[in-house]
């Protein structure tokens, strides 16, 4: 049970997430995103093994963003002609503003929760494999993404090495914060040059291993099973229940 979301076919999961996000964009009441957020977290609680500490950390920037939306809508939003709820100093807060602020900020949370669900339960390699197998993504495109994924740690090491090497050259002149940022430009050129070299080598290595970009067999089969459709329906259920808030809220 706790692995269900991880095992779900990544393409179907991606489809579910996309449908949810597109649909939510048409709801402007605060209850729909709130319910949806709760529903997504519940699904993740039940059917995944999430590191919730990490999840909270990843959620934090979105939470700050949501608060930003909330606050700016209250302060700068069109007051409209709704009832005045409170008056803080010169500021009148109307029911309309209050609702809009909640709706906007909860929307941010709803979108980010479903995106994080996808990110936390999907293995990138499996996602690409699934795209190749279910949606016939061209192997050339798929493997360029896979290779760049492999290169990320290598690039990180290279960046650190460059930084260390430059540290020994000393500041040259006094290192202001601004100077330090412009100095990054010097790291960029050798880093990019190295990346281009590596990309060429990788392309050679792939061709030398008989990669032609044409039809291929697949060692790891990413299957479509009944579970995937059940989970898809669960996502739809969460979406419809939260969407139905339009009628009763």
């Amino acid at each position, binding site marked *: 049970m706790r692995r269900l979301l991880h095992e779900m076919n990544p393409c179907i999961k991606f489809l579910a997430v996309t449908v949810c996000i597109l649909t939510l964009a048409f709801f402007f009441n605060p209850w729909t995103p709130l319910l949806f957020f709760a529903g997504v977290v519940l699904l993740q609680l039940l059917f995944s093994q999430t590191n919730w500490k990490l999840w909270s950390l990843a959620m934090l920037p979105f939470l700050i963003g949501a608060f930003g939306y909330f606050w700016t809508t209250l302060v700068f939003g069109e007051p409209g002609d709704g009832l005045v709820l409170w008056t803080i100093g010169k500021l009148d807060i109307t029911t309309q503003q209050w609702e809009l602020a909640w709706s906007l900020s909860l929307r941010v949370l709803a979108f980010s929760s479903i995106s994080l669900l996808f990110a936390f339960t999907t293995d990138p*390699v499996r996602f690409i494999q699934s795209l190749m197998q279910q949606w016939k993504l061209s192997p050339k495109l798929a*493997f360029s993404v*896979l*290779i760049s994924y*492999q*290169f990320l*740690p*290598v690039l990180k090491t290279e960046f650190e*090495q*460059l930084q*260390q*090497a*430059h*540290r*020994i*050259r*000393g500041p*040259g002149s006094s290192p202001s914060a601004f100077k330090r940022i412009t100095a990054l430009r*010097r790291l960029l050129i*050798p880093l990019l*040059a190295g990346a281009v070299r*590596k990309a060429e*080598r*990788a*392309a*050679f*290595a*792939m*061709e*030398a*291993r*008989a*990669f*032609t970009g044409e*039809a*291929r*067999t*697949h*060692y*790891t*089969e990413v299957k479509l099973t009944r579970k995937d459709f059940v989970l898809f329906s669960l996502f739809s259920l969460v979406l419809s229940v939260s969407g139905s808030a339009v009628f009763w809220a």
Partner: protein
Amino acid sequence: MSVLNPIFQVDGFSLRFPDLVEPTLRHITLVIHPTERLVITGPSGCGKSTLLYVLNRLYPHNCDGEVSGSVRIFGRLAQEYAPGEVNRKVATVFQDPDSQFCMPTVEEELAFTLENLQVPRQEMPQRIDRILHLTGLEDLRHGVIQSFSGGMKQRIATACALIMEPECLLLDEPLAHLDPLTAKEFVSWLDHLQQESGIAVIAVEHKLELWGSFFDREIALSENGTIRKDQLFTERDAPILPERTSAIRQEVLFEASDVCVSYASKSILQNIRLQLLSGEITVIAGPNGSGKSTLLKALCGILKIDAGTISGMRAGFVPQSPEQLFLSKSVEGELAYSGNSSTEKLHYLMTALDLESIAHAHPFSVSLGQKRRVAIGAMLADERQVLLLDEPTAGQDLKALTELHRQLTSRAQDGCALVVVTHDMNFAWHIADTIHLMKDGRLSLPFQPEELFSNSALLAEYRLHASKKGGYHAPAFA
């Protein structure tokens, strides 16, 4: 000569890259038969790797080069093959262990090759099992490739090439990044594999002494890209480098005592003690991953040390890729960057390091040897009389090694203290006043080269092998 049909028939082949005036390969004519063990030798930049890339059909297809003559692979003209088609029978292992994999684990990487060949899914597990068994890599099946050492990565790359069941294996300097014993192990492993599978092996290599009697034929290219010799391979001794007399002066330039470094609460360097005299050349040797590079970075102040003291002159650092240091647009500017030297001093350094002819060139555009000299110059101009060089010998041919030897010798005569990290025991023997060995983050006491190279137990413990110098013959590697 074998009666079997040849794998490669190259006839009067020349290749010129579009951005070069001179052709890289000229009038190459050769025939290679199945089960041959062939090595391509020659000075750096003579077109060895290019020739290898012609044999696996990556060139001229991927370089828009100007071509004359013909290359037949299994009797068919190279240009008649589709890209990737011939690579089912001609497999290649490249030099850089970091940029030849595209999947996370060994199993997936092996499967990648099979998927390319459109092997049915049901057959894949058996073929993967078989190749893992053949190459002795069973335990690594689910291992993450990027977490392995360079030596392991080369073995995995070889396994990925062999799983195609090719008729010919091409190797591009496969030992360049390996420590001596790992290199020797790789060679004997390959020897065993070749006997099992009976494929042809063609390698490009500088360091022939590491291969023992592995090869049976040698093609030597000359500087201008023609075949100089096509002959039976004879086992080589390490090349003879010039003798030098020690320039040690009894003046301590640099001293580190009880230096400890840890990273993410893991101890990397423990109680390092090192004393460097003026004019002394110190070699640090040890297996891949023993902490040698970390040590150099700690000594020159790039990495923070957790305990211990470093005193004396400031140390300068020359990384394996010297261009990592460069910050200016000209060689001249690179030396003047720190602003710590007078015009006269700069002028002296430019002359001493033989940089005058490239003073206005962009430091990224000069040759590797020149880049290293620029980096040394920049360090000396920054008043760093202690120079720490990380792997300056990796992938260098004899000419480059001789030039490096000369350069280090004259810097020592100027009174610098030099530390060289290297896997090249022959070079170490010829250059070192003192040798320290390193293992698991611990640095040994100093050894005299003679004392070290006659102690085979000690060498084996640090995954080194004895170099041959003068009349002395080292025991075969243990």
